[in-house]
Structure formats: structure tokens, C-alpha cells
């Protein structure tokens, strides 16, 4: 532990308070009996049980002794006995705790069982029990509290030692023939010291309170000696005459107990510093001070709906050449300029940055991208399920012709609850573990369609049957953990089918499943789409999965859409990133003998996006033009890409490996937004 850590801890409010309190008590314990010891014994028959006065700061007790001095002097006894009891508890607890490691397996198990049995009883009950055996008085009480505290400490030692005992260096020592006792004291205990010190400190606070309790009951310190507990007991009987006589020792006990507990917390902070400091760098959004953004959470559409539709329709007017009637009112979902922002320690980050997404009735759209491309967050945002701290903005966010930001929560629930279904990545964690699967399905129509319990249950069983959960009747009554992974995911799809959805958003629905199950789930999704006519948005990092299932593919990179194309144009993808994704898939024109290409480099952090094209650092075709942001533009009918140098021609297996720019690289000029 470095000194600076301690100094920092002392500077924190908790550390400073505990250090000040504790040093004050220690100084008092040392000097108070020497200075005021005699005065505190002085009886004054002319001033019995008096309230506070100039002469006696907190008044006097029944024999006319000064309460304030007695409280000060009692510090030594109170602290000393508490520390003594803690030492006993820690010694016995450590011995009991290392026994399983020292003794053989069988004897060790006995020690564990013994400790478990004793821990079941509250320490105070054990203390009372031992107080009977050791007799009334300070000595008995110290032993009683010490022994009563031992089991919980032993439990702590046991768990900590057991955690360390499996580590390499312990095994190495064991192999090297280090004896058991030596092993414990040289290798095990030193490595669990930190939590033990923390807990011993906190325990000292507990011992202090327990001692005060026993003394208060008359079982602890006996006259003429006195500690805070006994002063409290004496003061309580005269609380009408002089409340201070009862309150002052009580306050002293609480303060001293607090000093120990806070010291324990400070030590924990110091020893825990290494882990917490490291963790702070990992999270995308480390704990932060929440700052309300100036902007409203959802912007009202600045332009009126019609003009927005104009924008959408012009773009698809060109696309509807091959007879697929794509009219604006056909859109299930329209999101324009969707941005999702998170407050961060260094300002806002935008993991989704101006995404346009339109999904038509009955259409299957795939959103592809590496993890961190913002594809899932895009889906959550349009579904109004983004995390609480996220700020979602869009110039248009329409679902079935309804502008979502304009609706109240209750209206949204009614609309989305029946018309939009979600399927999440991990079917294991996406079901409520403590609720029967059938109930979780039934809940949907019970809430939104007012079905009776019975009707909703029947519907749930029917839906489970529909998604081919075998023995649906019985399965409905089971808990999620009794389902297999694929079955859970099918049940999740079944949950989406409780009503008749117009849109199913499936976020990596097959990623957590193994290959054969993946195929089943995809087949089911396709079937659902065909039968119900619902539009499907399938989100995946795997372009192969998406191309099996979808008509149109949206490729996302670093929070933006970089290419949008029909699945049959995939072989002629224009954006280098799309081509790279395809190159990393083994089945499209790949030589089986070649190692699978991966895209070198990593996507940029949303907080540190390069200016211009975010893909530039990993792109073989990047040049100076690419420092300006490319916009999505048509490169072919129904195909749009955001790239200064869109590629043409069939996708090579791995366009990035030693790639030479294709001969005919068209360079766009102008076109800056």
C-alpha cells in the first residue's frame, strides 16, 4: 500500500472524520484517567443528581460525581475492553478459520460445520451464554464477547482462505513440500490480510457496542469500575432528573462505534483502490455526475410530417422501379436523423449518430455491423427502450404513422405493446428467472388486451405450440431455467406473437445459440414473418446470418449507416467496410483453403471518432478526401453508400489484405453536405 493512498483516503470526508474521531478517543483513553481520574471519583453529597451547571458541565450522578469527567475517564475502560475482546475474537476466529486448511479434508469439514452452526446464532445471544459460564464482570464479558465474535470472523477467514487456497502459488508451495502449518502462516494468511484487517476494525466497533450493552445490563463491568455502558445504565434510572447522565455516555458509545466502522471503510477504500481504479477505465460510461442535457429528451419534429415523408419517398421513388410498391404510408417504421447520446466524464458521446432507418410493411431488414457499431442501440432507441441515461433525439420517429415522441407513456405502451415485438440476444437472461414461462407470455395479452387469466394462459400455450415448444402445456408451467437455450429463444419469439405484431425487432437472436439451433430459430423467424406478414428487423454482427434472412441490408459502422443495399446486390457491395465484412465470411466465393480473413484494427470509440469517414484508419482506399464526412448517396439502383471511393465489381475474398485500389476508382467530387 502506498503512502499516497493513505493520504488520499485521509483527505476524503469519511477518512478524515474517522481518523480525527479515533485519535481523539485514543488520546482521551491515554490521558483522561490520569488527569480527571480522581476528580471523577469525588462524591459531593450537596449536589446529588443535578442537571448541568457551571460547576458540573453535564451535571452529577446519584452520588454527586461529575458526569462529564466520568464519561471522559470511562474512555480507557470502554475502548480497552472492546479492543481486548476483538483481539480474542480475531485470534480464535483465525485459528478456527484456518483449521480446514491445516487439517485434512474430513476434520476440516467438521470445523466448517461447527462455524456454520455457531454463526446461525446472533453474537449477543452467544455472548449472554458465555457470560453465564465465565461469570459476571469485566473479565467474563471480555471472554464472552470475544468468543461470541469468533465464529463470524472464522467464517470470513475460511471463505477468504478457501478462495486463495486454489491459486497457483499455493499449489506450487504445496508441491514444493511446504508443511500445512507453514503454508497457512507464510502463504495463505498474508494473502487474505486485507479483508481481515478491515473486518477486525469493524468488529472492534461491534465489540464496543456489545460491551456497552452487557455493562448496561449489569453483566459487564462491575462497580467500582465503570465504562460507558454502566454510566448509561445508572443514568437511565435518573433520566427525569438529569437526561445528560444517560445521553452523554450513549453519544460516546455511538461516536466511538462509528469511528471504528468508518476506519474500517477507509481501510477498505485504500486496499480496494487498485481494483476500483482499474475498473474506472473499462466502462464506457464510468460513474458520472448526471448532467441534464439542455436539449429536450426527444425533439419535436421540426418540420411537419408531410415534408419528412417527402424526403423518404423521393429516396424510395427511385427504388420502386422493379414493381415493389413502396409508398410512404407503407412504412411501419421511419426514423430520421436518429441520435443516441450518453453523458460522459468528458462531455457527451454519441454511439448512434444521425441514423436514418425505414422499414416497410412485411419487409425484412438486416442491420449489420461489428460490436460497438451502434446497431443494437439503434434498435433499442426506435423501440423506446434505450437505457435510462441515454438521450434519444430524432427529427422523425414514426411507428405505424404515429410519431412516438409525441405520445404519452400510456399511449406508447398500448401501441407498441400490441404492434411491436422484441427478441433479445440472450434468451437465458432475457426471461424473468422467478416466473413461469407461461405467465410471462400471458402477461402480454392480460395487460394489453384485457384477457382473463385463463384466456391469456391458453393463448400462451397456443403460442408456445406455434413456435414448436414440445409439450407446450407442461412447458408453460415451467421456469425458464428448465428450458434449453433454443427453446427459450423460441418461447421469446412466441412471446412476441401473443398479439399480432406489425414489426418484430430481433437483436442478435441467434448469437448465444449453437449452430444447429441458430438455424432453427432463423427458420422460425422467417416462418413467422411469412405467416403474420410482420416486418422484421434482424440485427446481427454476422452478415451471413442477415443475408440468409433479409431482403435489404443496412450496414452500420461507428454509429452511422455506411451502406444500404438489397441482399441480391451484396456481391457488388460498394463500401469498403461492407466488402471487408463479406470478405470475412467463408462462404461467398472464398477459397476454402485460405485462412478466414478478419478486418484488421478495431472500430473507433464513439468518443474518439476520426473526423470524416470513421472507417478511414482501417480502410485500404483512404486518402485525403476521406477526412471530410461522406454522405449516403446512390451508387446503384436501391443501393446507397457513404464513401468517397465506392468500389465496384465482385467482392474479393479479402479486399483488405494487401489490397490495391481497383483500377477504376471513381472519385466523387463535391457533394459535401
Amino acid at each position: 500500500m502506498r503512502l499516497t493512498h493513505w493520504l488520499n483516503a485521509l483527505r476524503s470526508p469519511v477518512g478524515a472524520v474517522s481518523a480525527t474521531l479515533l485519535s481523539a478517543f485514543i488520546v482521551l483513553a491515554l490521558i483522561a484517567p490520569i488527569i480527571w481520574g480522581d476528580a471523577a471519583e469525588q462524591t459531593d453529597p450537596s449536589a446529588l443528581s443535578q442537571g448541568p451547571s457551571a460547576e458540573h458541565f453535564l451535571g452529577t450522578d446519584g452520588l454527586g460525581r461529575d458526569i462529564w469527567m466520568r464519561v471522559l475517564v470511562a474512555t480507557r475502560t470502554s475502548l480497552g475492553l472492546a479492543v481486548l475482546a476483538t483481539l480474542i475474537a480475531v485470534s480464535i476466529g483465525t485459528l478456527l478459520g484456518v483449521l480446514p486448511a491445516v487439517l485434512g479434508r474430513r476434520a476440516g469439514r467438521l470445523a466448517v460445520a461447527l462455524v456454520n452452526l455457531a454463526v446461525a446464532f446472533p453474537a449477543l445471544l452467544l455472548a449472554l451464554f458465555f457470560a453465564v459460564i465465565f461469570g459476571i464482570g469485566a473479565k467474563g464479558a471480555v471472554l464472552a464477547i470475544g468468543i461470541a465474535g469468533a465464529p463470524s470472523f472464522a467464517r470470513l477467514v475460511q471463505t477468504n482462505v478457501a478462495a486463495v487456497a486454489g491459486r497457483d502459488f499455493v499449489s506450487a508451495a504445496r508441491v514444493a513440500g511446504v508443511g500445512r502449518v507453514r503454508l497457512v502462516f507464510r502463504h495463505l494468511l498474508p494473502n487474505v490480510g486485507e479483508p481481515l484487517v478491515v473486518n477486525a476494525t469493524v468488529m472492534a466497533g461491534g465489540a464496543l457496542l456489545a460491551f456497552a450493552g452487557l455493562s448496561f445490563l449489569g453483566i459487564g463491568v462491575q462497580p467500582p469500575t465503570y465504562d460507558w455502558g454502566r454510566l448509561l445504565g445508572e443514568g437511565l434510572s435518573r433520566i427525569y432528573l438529569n437526561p445528560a447522565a444517560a445521553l452523554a455516555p450513549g453519544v460516546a458509545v455511538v461516536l466511538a462505534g462509528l469511528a471504528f466502522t468508518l476506519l474500517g471503510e477507509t481501510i477498505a477504500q485504500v486496499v480496494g483502490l487498485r481494483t476500483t481504479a482499474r475498473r474506472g477505465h473499462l466502462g464506457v460510461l464510468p460513474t458520472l455526475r448526471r448532467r441534464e442535457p439542455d436539449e429536450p429528451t426527444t425533439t419535436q419534429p421540426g418540420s411537419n410530417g408531410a415534408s419528412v415523408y417527402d424526403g423518404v419517398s423521393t429516396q424510395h421513388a427511385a427504388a420502386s422501379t422493379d414493381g415493389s410498391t413502396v409508398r410512404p404510408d407503407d412504412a411501419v417504421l421511419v426514423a430520421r436523423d436518429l441520435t443516441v447520446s450518453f453523458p460522459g466524464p468528458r462531455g457527451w458521446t454519441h454511439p448512434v449518430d444521425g441514423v436514418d432507418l425505414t422499414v416497410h410493411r412485411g419487409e425484412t431488414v438486416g442491420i449489420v455491423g461489428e460490436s460497438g457499431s451502434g446497431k443494437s442501440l439503434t434498435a433499442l432507441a426506435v423501440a423506446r427502450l434505450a437505457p435510462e441515461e441515454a438521450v434519444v433525439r430524432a427529427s422523425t420517429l414514426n411507428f405505424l404513422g404515429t410519431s412516438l415522441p409525441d405520445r404519452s407513456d400510456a399511449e406508447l405502451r398500448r401501441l407498441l405493446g400490441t404492434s411491436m415485438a422484441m427478441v433479445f440476444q440472450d434468451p437465458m437472461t432475457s426471461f424473468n428467472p422467478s416466473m413461469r414461462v407461461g405467465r410471462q407470455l400471458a402477461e402480454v395479452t392480460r395487460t394489453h388486451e384485457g384477457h382473463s387469466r385463463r384466456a391469456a394462459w391458453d393463448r400462451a400455450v397456443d403460442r408456445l405450440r406455434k413456435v414448436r415448444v414440445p409439450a407446450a402445456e407442461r412447458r408453460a408451467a415451467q421456469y425458464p431455467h428448465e428450458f434449453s437455450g433454443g427453446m427459450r429463444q423460441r418461447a421469446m419469439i412466441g412471446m412476441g406473437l401473443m398479439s399480432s405484431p406489425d414489426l418484430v425487432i430481433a437483436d442478435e437472436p441467434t448469437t448465444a445459440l449453437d449452430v444447429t439451433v441458430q438455424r432453427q430459430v432463423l427458420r422460425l423467424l422467417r416462418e413467422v414473418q411469412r405467416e403474420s406478414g410482420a416486418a422484421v428487423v434482424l440485427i446481427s454482427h454476422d452478415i451471413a446470418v442477415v443475408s440468409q434472412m433479409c431482403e435489404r441490408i443496412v450496414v452500420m459502422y461507428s454509429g452511422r449507416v455506411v451502406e444500404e443495399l438489397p441482399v441480391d446486390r451484396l456481391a457488388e457491395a460498394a463500401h469498403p467496410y461492407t466488402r471487408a465484412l463479406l470478405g470475412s465470411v467463408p462462404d461467398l466465393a472464398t477459397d476454402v483453403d485460405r485462412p478466414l480473413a478478419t478486418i484488421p484494427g478495431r472500430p473507433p470509440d464513439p468518443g474518439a471518432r476520426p473526423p470524416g469517414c470513421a472507417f478511414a484508419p482501417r480502410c485500404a482506399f483512404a486518402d485525403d478526401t476521406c477526412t471530410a464526412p461522406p454522405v449516403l448517396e446512390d451508387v446503384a439502383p436501391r443501393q446507397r453508400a457513404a464513401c468517397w471511393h465506392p468500389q465496384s465489381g465482385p467482392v474479393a475474398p479479402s479486399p483488405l489484405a494487401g489490397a490495391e485500389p481497383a483500377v477504376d476508382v471513381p472519385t466523387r467530387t463535391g457533394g459535401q453536405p
Partner: protein
Amino acid sequence: MTAPPVAVTRRGGLPAGVRNPWLVFLGRRFARLVVSLAVLVTLAFLMIHLVPGDPVRAALGLTAPAELVEARRESLGLNDPLIVQYGNYLSGLFRGDLGVSMTSGVPVVDTIGQRLPASASLGLSAFVVIMVSAIPLGLAMAVLTRGGRRRGVELGFTSTSAMIAAIPEFLLAVGLIFVFAVTLGWLPVAGRGGLDSYLLPVLALSAGPTLVIARIVRVEALAVFGQDFVRTARAKRLPPWRVYFRHAFPNALTSTLTIGGLLLGSMIVGTVLVENVFAWPGMGMTIVQSILAKDYPLVQAAVLVYGLAVLLVNLMVDLLLAVVDPRSTIREA
């Protein structure tokens, strides 16, 4: 959150008697209860024998004539071989005979029958208060401070609750007496009487555990709010109360119950101190007075009563846990 990827399927669908995880769990749990009970009873019996020196001499005082001590030893059966005494003690227990008080000569069972209701009513009231206030408070705090909202509320709640929970119940009792009985004169300072006499002791007993449990509920609920199935519940567009109460809360209950059970166990024993602060005529006064008077048969019985209460609370908590979180039950069994 790890479970076998393959479901536990049993052909025929009917739980096969012996392998039923519930039966296995119950069997184990009751076996543990029996062992704990046996240890408790044995320790209570041994207590008098573990006292160094002659407990009867210690109880009657050094001045007591030797014949009296001997007669008392004889009447307590202390001169029999240990194993015979143990047998007598056990058979007495089954007959509901806990011996006779050494100081008053009254059968111990009568004393307990007289004192226990006062303690039980106090403990149960405190328990009810804790349950009806801690869980809604913790949940409300979790909902209010979710996703890092309302830092001020969070800080206020965590620091106040930490402060109050750091004050042991008997000191809190003293403070409450000072404020409400001595200064304001609203409530009786001590004794057991009407409903108003319950207010302060119950408050003193329940304040700390309520706040601690509320803190746990809050932290657990916040952790659950971030989990996938809560997102699923939101994706089903359930009303917020249903998301919080039906989906989030039951899954936050496990550790709440675990720690809450420990707190309740120590609250039972905490009544000993609080009863003594309020001069409450219950078991707490009895056990302290009998310890001070070295009235061993009474101490023995009181220790048994408290130990039994704690074991029953632990049992109840474990059974509740099994109902709330059947997964862990099955894993354990």
C-alpha cells in the same frame, strides 16, 4: 445466472418422488434444524456444568451452609452421573418440564409462559413494522434514484440510513425516551400497558433493521433494473409498477431475505436490551435477572427459548427463499 444449457427433462412429466428437488431440499433443511436443535439443547444443558467451581455454591453465596448447598445440589440432580442428568433433562424437556427456579421456586415453564407473550408481541410488532416499511421504502428509493438520477436524494438516504443504523437499538431507545417521553411527555417512559407503550420500543427495535433492509432492497433492485429480463418486461410494455413489483422486486428478494433473516435473528436478541431499557416485563428482563441471580434453570430455559426463536426465524427465511427463488433450491438440492 448460469444454468445447464439443456433443460431438465424427465420422461412422463411427473416428478419422480425421491428425486424431487423440493423433497431433497426440505429433507436437508429439516435435518439441519434437528442438528442445530440438538446442539442448542445440549449446550443449554452443559452450561451449568461448564461454570467453573460449584454453581450452586456460587448461586447461594459463600455464607450458605454446606447442608443447604448439598440439598440443593441433590434436588437439582447435580450429583447424578452426567449422562443420567442429560437423560432426565431431555425427558423433562419432552414433558414440558424445565425445572424449578432456584430463586423463586416457581416452575420455570410458568415464568416463561407468563413472560414470553410480552416479548413475542414486541418482536412481532417490530417485525411487521420492518416488513411493511423497509421494502416499499427501498423500492421507492431504487425507482427514484435509478440510472443515477437524483443524486441528492440518494446521498441523503444512504447517509441518514447509515447513521441511524449505526446506533444500536438500546441507545436509540434511550434517545427516543429522552425526546418523546421525558422532553415532550407524549409517551410512557417505560412499562407495558396500552398501545402507546408499544410505540417507542417497537420504533427502537425496527428503525435500524428497516433502514438497513431498505438499503439492501435499493441496491439489489437497482442491480436488477439493469438486467436483461427487466428490459424484456419493458419491451412487453408493461406498466411501470408491474415492471418494478412483478419482475424486478421478486428477483431482488433473495439477498434481501438472506440479510434480512440475519437482521431479524439479531433483532430477536436485541429485544433483550430494549426490554431492559423500557422495563418491559418479557423474556429479556427474565434472562438478565436470572443471569445476575445465577438462577441456572431459568437461564437455561431462557437461552433455549431465544435459541429456538432464532432457529425458527432462520428456517422460515430459508423456506421463503426457496419459494421465492426455486432455482437456488434446486441447485442446492
